[in-house]
């Protein structure tokens, strides 16, 4: 089986991570922010898997499973907060929730 070169894998992971980060920073809708966070988490997971495949170790995939579990937990808490946010403000705009400024 042809191995995907590790450099290409990391470039892809980096690109995904950057896209996710940009999404977090520029989107105002909190749902999209959560989605972008998912992209970032998966980019990190991809990097682990690529590295694990390169050295033939299972550790990369183990960590990816952890990341999946954490992402599930994060989304459940995040969505609960989103619901509460919408309940209070009738809006999904994060910039509306800026009362805790210095």
């Amino acid at each position, binding site marked *: 089986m042809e191995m995907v070169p590790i450099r290409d894998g990391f470039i892809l992971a980096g690109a995904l991570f950057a896209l996710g*980060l940009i999404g*977090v*920073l*520029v989107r*105002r809708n909190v749902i999209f*922010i959560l989605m972008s966070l998912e992209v970032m988490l998966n980019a990190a997971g991809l990097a682990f898997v690529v590295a694990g495949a390169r050295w033939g170790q299972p550790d990369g995939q183990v960590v990816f499973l952890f990341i999946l579990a954490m992402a599930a937990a994060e989304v459940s808490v995040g969505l609960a907060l989103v619901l509460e946010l919408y309940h209070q403000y009738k809006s999904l705009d*994060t*910039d509306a*929730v*800026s*009362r*805790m*400024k*210095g």
Partner: protein
Amino acid sequence: MLELLWLVPAIPFAGALVLAVLGARMSHKSATIMGVGTVAASAIISILIAAEFLNSPPATGMYTQTLWTWIDVGSFRPQIAFYLDALSLVMMVVVTFVSFLIHLYSAEFMRTDEGYSRFFAYMNLFVACMVTLLLADNLLLLYLGWEGVGLCSYLLIGFWYQDPVNGRAGRKAFIVTRVGDTAMAIGLFLLFHSLGTLRIQDLLHAAQVQWSTGSAYAIAAAALLLGGAVGKSAQLPLQTWLPDAMAGPTPTSALIHAATMVTAGVYLIARTHVLFELAPPVQFAVAAIGAATLLMAGFSALTQNDIKRVLAYSTVSQIGYMFLALGVGAWGAAIFHFMTHAFFKALLFLAAGIIIESLHHEHNIFRMGGLRKELPIAFWTFLIAGCSLAGLPLITAGYYSKDLILWSAGSSAAGSTALWAAGIAGVVLTSLYTFRLIFLVFFGPVRTLVSRRPGLAMTIPVCVLAVLSIVGGFDKAPFARFIATALPTLSEAVGGITETLSSIVAALAFLCGLLGAWFVYQRNPTLATAMVENPAGRALHRFWFSDWAMDWLYDRLFVRPVIWIARVNKADLVDSIYDGLASLTAICYRVLSLTETGKLRWYAAWIAGGTVAFVAIVMFL
């Protein structure tokens, strides 16, 4: 019995504590029992201790009681320990006994005062501090008592604090004595630095071994201790606080002048006499200061018209005699004079208190007069104390002690005829101002009507003190033998003044003053006014009245410049550094708080940026 020594300062201290905490809620009667009773207990215990000490003296002539170690830092281990020998025993008994009489008197004198329990709290603390000072085994504990006495004097002089003048007098006493205290503190640092201990007996022993007579260290240490003594004992040039200290209630004046506070300086010098013997120039300075002070204060006392100020200057002058005695090495004579002075000066103030209270708080002697018939008790006791102060030959205690000092000044190896002559001139002045006071206050026409006669609590103390003012001098020989167990005896010079000659001249000096006062104030009352009327007389009168313009001088030299600097430097130059620091912090805070936008995306951006920066630093640096 001797083990009860610690109770002597502890009981009045406990009394002060209880009165300070619960005083406001105590009834008048329980406050009296607390205030007078504690000092009475202390006096009884100290008399019992004295009886035991005299009957079966300890083998070494002293007794030490160590309670606990106060501070333990390396080789510096001062202890809370009391040291009892002939010197501290005499001081302790006189101080507690006279204080007890003054407390008893105060119970009546202050009965209507609002701050009754506060007054007794201060007075008890005063006695406790003074006894601590006297019994201290090391100089640090002595310094604690020393400062405590200063604090209490401040509190009591400014006791009637509603009047700003009293507060001023209190502050003046505190600040002026502080000048001396600072010198003394430096002296203690020097002693500890060079001798490695503050225990008085070890220190004196080490000084004798390590320092030769006249060495620079000994001179510096003795001079610094002298500075402290001069401040506390109101000697030249720091005597200006004592006359103003008359702002306090009269029993306070009696306590400050007779028992506590001003004699602390005399005690300090007597206690550390070895240092002064190692520093002959400083010891001479002690005698010179004493002689100069006794003359200056005598002249000032002549011109005062406030009965208490006359007595205040007479105290300054009498302490001058004690310094003179210390300076010529007559240590025992100084302590003997301290004892007789405590009796007659306490009596003078207490009798003056009776007069002042009977005349609606009138202090001016020119508005008194003819009180001989009106207040016979005050008259007789004041007369006895006045004779003792002036030194009425052969009868009074003051004669014996002063005579001993005069003879010592003339005959000691460290003395001289000049010092003796100054002392004799002082006797003339003392006699003159004392009888001026007596003639003006008790003789002549009645000028103010008496409103109240003293009760029993005021009569008993003055009667007891009157007896002591007479019989206190008859124990001259046994006293000298007893005190010699703690202090060296006088080393006489060859061919000095003989005792008989000195006594005869002193007696003549006393008569001179008496006749002078009688002639000016009794025979020709117009003469005194005539003397003050002519220009030279008036200038001299003003000069002496203002205490040789010392207050004016200090006002110009120190007080005004300080006030001027304070006014110019209102913004406080040094403080601006800290102000700048504070405003820099405030600016930083304002800038940083701008980043707290409350916008989630900004925070995320900062986290991302920070991470990138951190990784970059790790990778490239």
